[in-house]
């Protein structure tokens, strides 16, 4: 029990003392997971729109598959990506294995089903109405879709946050394709697993607290942007 308290205190100490390595690791966690979510959104929000608004054969099957993939094990993604990016694999020439980029790709894959699925469920709330209204007042199809996007943008941020939460907290894929290299691919989760192995339990808890703090900052910033807790 004592270790938990010590760990929590140490976490705050590390945050306050601005330990250089910890800041580096946190920043790396943040940008790798952030970039992964961003890339995933670029692809997956349009895919969600297409799946919702257009007639696609076996759409129900698609949706089932996507929702099943919410449970995609991160280690499996890591393994799959490892085999692709390994020197022996089809993409070995790119030399991406054990780089932060491999981690970005992996996490983007992991969060994609969530973004697609939640985009679709967001759209099913009010997508059709907005879309048809926009068409009826003489907008083009593209303008109508744009109008829908504008209407649902805040709900999409929630799904983005969920995706980000999954990305920044996953360890299986990060350790598999990143390799947990100090100063290069070590992120908060892989550092936690390393320090636990070393027996530095307090430091592990401290790092966990920092991960939560990073997530808190991201949440607060996006919520501010969303206007939920706006400055009044």
């Amino acid at each position, binding site marked *: 029990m004592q270790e938990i308290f010590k760990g929590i205190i140490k976490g705050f100490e590390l945050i306050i003392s601005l330990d250089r390595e910890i800041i580096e690791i946190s920043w790396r966690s943040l*940008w790798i997971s952030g*970039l992964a979510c961003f890339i995933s959104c670029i692809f997956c929000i349009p895919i969600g729109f297409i799946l919702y608004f257009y007639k696609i054969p076996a759409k129900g099957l698609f949706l089932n598959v996507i929702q099943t993939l919410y449970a995609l094990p991160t280690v499996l993604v890591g393994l799959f990506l490892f085999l692709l990016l*390994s*020197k*022996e694999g089809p993409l070995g020439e*790119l*030399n*991406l*294995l*054990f780089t*932060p*980029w491999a981690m970005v790709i992996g996490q983007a894959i992991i969060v994609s089903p969530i973004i697609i699925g939640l985009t679709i469920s967001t759209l099913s709330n009010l997508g059709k109405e907005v879309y048809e209204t926009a068409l009826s007042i003489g907008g083009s199809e593209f303008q109508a879709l744009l109008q829908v996007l504008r209407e649902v943008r805040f709900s999409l941020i929630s799904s983005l946050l969920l995706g980000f939460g999954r990305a920044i907290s996953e360890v299986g894929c990060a350790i598999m394709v990143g*390799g*947990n*290299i*100090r100063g*290069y691919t070590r992120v908060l989760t892989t550092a936690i697993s*390393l320090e*636990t*192995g*070393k*027996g530095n*339990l307090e430091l592990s808890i401290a790092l966990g607290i920092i991960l939560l703090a990073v997530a808190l900052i991201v949440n607060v910033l996006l919520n501010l942007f969303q206007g939920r807790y706006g400055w009044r």
Partner: protein
Amino acid sequence: MVTVFLKILLFILGLSFLAQGETLKLGSTTSLCDTGVWDYLGEIFEREHGIKLNVMCVGSGMAFELAKRGDVDLIAVHEPEGEKNLLKEGHGIQRIPFAFNYFLIVGPREDPASIKGLNPILAMRKIYQKGEEGKCLWISRGDESGTHKREKELWKKASLDYSFITPKPWYIETGTGMAQTLFIAHQKKAYTLVDRATFLHFKNKISLIPLLQKGKELLNVYSLILINPMKHKINFKASQKFAEFIISNAIQNFFDSYGITEFGDFMFQSCAKNQNICHARNF
């Protein structure tokens, strides 16, 4: 094309420090990583040779896999059988033992199987007997790691059939890393096999004590294996430099003294001063 795009992206993000200079990729077994030696050695090596040491900490099985795929420039492992195979298959070109220590058999202070002071083989038999009588427990990694392989070897040397032991109620497989396994052994007041470094790290957090810590059956030699440059596109020059660096006098002395200030006990012994021991397992 993709790499160019990524580099540009890197630049825009203001993260160009990520584009590293010459690097050396070392696949290391986790138990060695957990000692923290690579953090020290990596810094010294980079200062002296201008090559950044990138260490991937993986299980021994994965280390061999990385070596076979040419995804690393060299590996640091402690599993003689696997090392032998890697050399035989031609993926490894040279084996360089650089340090060693002894595995420990740890257990509760009361030592219900009274193994203290016995030789490892007799001890395993005693644990088996007392286990059958329901007087003690044995905790196993059960994960095909170097340590687990050694445990299986010990049962075999004690002429006990491993597949016969595993279903026993006194035999518990954790399937996790050394730290967790040791902690479970502590909670259950059980016997287990542990590497010296992990034990020293946890010494003050657990109630188990080392009951056996010597004997050739417990010898644990750490070696570098250089990957064959004819077979894989790797940075062979750098891996040679690193091997020379590791067996240099300064670094060998470093291994002898490592851990003494932090844990009050040595963690390794260097191969330079104990050539006969390091090469004892006929290679």
